[in-house]
């Protein structure tokens, strides 16, 4: 019985770490939603695109190599250099800012004042475009991302728990790093939005578009800023997930996992995204552990959604959200 309990605790801890990853993606959603009322379905694909770009830059891949080869009949694939990780991350960040600007200029500007559902569908279109674009630019094969983060079992925790309970817990080093980075990221974001001029403008826009406009805040620049920050969060999430399971198409599907996290935590709350992610992460792992064998396994696919669905019926604004949802 005690053995079982220890297993459950280990599962819950691992779920906690997975939940941090979900929170990272959900954070990007919340930022954009708060500032512009847009539910950005493309957030997951942005993470994929950022990770692809990072790997491509580090390995010195030729962008659009496939297309160029097909059109010109050449054999280009690598420039033959290797960028250091820090430099590549900076370049990727620059590309994400350019992307944010382009999205704002080409799509969002023309859809101001449309219904939220139209904007949502536009971001689904954007997600499709970016998916094709990323694959076209860097190739669709699974890539290994190595920016020098520690990986593998954490020996210290294993030993300590083994000495204490007679059973060593398996905790991945990468998950611990991810947790620390997520904590730092959230702190930085909170400090940014509380204590800087841009942060204050951002909160003003989130509060009331028209009032913000009337005191001279430029909506356009705020939106570019917000999408850039979301791009940065996507990059961090992409690096974490990419280091964990390789950079590949399935990375973009974590966006779908972030949706129930948001429903649980509320669409407008940064702490909500964190807590929601943790609940979903721990909940789905524990549910799989306890009820999975009886139900045939792989319950992670739907547990989060069904939990969110149940939640939605009883508390539509989520745990921490403002009461903005219209009840019918």
């Amino acid at each position, binding site marked *: 019985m005690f053995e079982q309990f220890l297993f459950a605790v280990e599962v819950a801890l691992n779920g906690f770490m997975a939940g941090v990853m979900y929170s990272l993606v959900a954070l990007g959603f919340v930022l954009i939603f708060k500032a512009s009322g847009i539910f950005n379905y493309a957030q997951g694909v942005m993470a994929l695109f950022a990770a692809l770009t990072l790997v491509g830059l580090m390995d010195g891949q030729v962008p659009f190599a496939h297309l160029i080869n097909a059109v010109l009949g050449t054999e280009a694939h690598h420039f033959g250099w290797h960028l250091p990780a820090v430099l590549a991350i900076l370049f990727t960040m620059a590309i994400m800012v350019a992307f944010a600007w382009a999205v704002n200029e080409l799509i969002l500007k023309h859809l101001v004042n449309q219904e939220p*559902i139209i904007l949502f569908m536009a971001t689904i279109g954007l997600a499709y475009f970016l998916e*094709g674009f990323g694959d076209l630019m860097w190739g669709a094969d699974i890539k290994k991302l190595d920016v020098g983060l520690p990986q593998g079992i954490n020996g210290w925790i294993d030993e300590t728990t083994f000495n204490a309970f007679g059973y060593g817990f398996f905790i991945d080093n990468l998950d611990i790093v991810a947790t620390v980075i997520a904590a730092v990221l959230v702190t930085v974001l909170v400090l940014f939005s509380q204590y800087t001029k841009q942060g204050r403008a951002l909160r003003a826009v989130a509060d009331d578009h028209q009032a913000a406009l009337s005191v001279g805040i430029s909506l356009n620049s705020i939106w570019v800023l917000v999408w850039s920050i979301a791009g940065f969060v996507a990059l961090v999430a992409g690096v974490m997930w990419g280091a964990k399971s390789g950079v590949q198409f399935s990375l973009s599907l974590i966006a779908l996992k972030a949706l129930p996290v948001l*429903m649980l935590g509320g669409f407008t709350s940064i702490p909500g995204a964190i807590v929601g992610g943790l609940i979903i992460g721990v909940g789905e792992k524990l549910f799989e552990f306890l009820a999975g064998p009886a139900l045939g396994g792989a319950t992670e696919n739907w547990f989060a959604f069904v939990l969110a669905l149940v939640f939605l019926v009883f508390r539509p604004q989520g745990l921490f959200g403002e009461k903005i949802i219209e009840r019918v």
Partner: protein
Amino acid sequence: MIYREAGDFKTNYREDGRTFPIRFDRWAYFATLAVAFLVVPFVINDYWANAVLLPFLIYAIATLGLNILTGYCGQVSLGTGGFMAVGAYACYKLMTGFPDVNIVFHVILAGGITAAVGVLFGLPSLRIKGFYLAVATLAAQFFLVWLFNRVGWFYNYSASGQINAPTRTVFGVEVTGPTTSAWATYLFCLVFVVICAWLARNMTRGSLGRKWMAIRDMDIAAEIIGVNPLGAKLTAFAVSSFFVGISGALFFAVYLGAVEVGEVFGIQKSFLVLFMIIIGGLGSILGSFAGAAFLVLLPVFLKNVLTGTLGWPTDLAAHIEFMIVGALICAFLIFEPHGLAQLWRLTKEKLRTWPFPY
């Protein structure tokens, strides 16, 4: 000049309220039907049936269904793939459970079962709306696909986890199974499409359709003038799921013959059908057909041009297809939110006065 309504007088309400009030439209409609029923079956071959016509017809039914829910009633659903899977598996269980009953009844019953499931997952729509509802329907998508993947009863405990359509006949002609001929499957689907389109058109212009549109345009106002939101929304879910279920059953039994649920009825299918109604036109029957045709033909066209003519590798063509579809969605939402159907309407207006516009 080609398109005129001068002299086309109506003397009673019945004539005024017809689906095609202009004579030219009416003749075009009958001509299309005649070609579809009397000419195409004789010239069809396997390539055209499998690459273009069957997917077009089957997606057209699914698009009609989703258009009723999203275009007419305003409830966005991302669970279409899951509901198509319900139709497919219901059809499979009925086909294997009652082999003596005609397949036509199986397909219709599969639609009915899907309607029941649709109503069940439509219940949250009574409390939430907008993209909250869209996300809630994602729960249906993932749960249903998982269910059909994991519970052996649904695929009769077959070792591969696949379902295979056994051979069934209508009037002595094989319509499902490995040895069907192209014209038989085509005609079988076409009959369902025509009936579904006729049903959809007449439902959407009747009192039921007006209730749906009232809910879509403003639910509170609709409630005040006496529309029951519960009834309107749940009927929209039921009718929509009925159509989607039929299309799922046909997709499995007639078109593919063998189905692995995660691959065929995944989230991608839900998005595909949603894109069809956005590009075709929300709240338009003609738009449903136009959207389905467009997104079925686009990959075929790109494949022929890029890999056939230019000789590019297929994966490159696939990436470019993704980009084009995504860009088209954004472009349509920005420039023409009512889709191809609205473009056709504008063209008609232009044609009325051509070549002497005033």
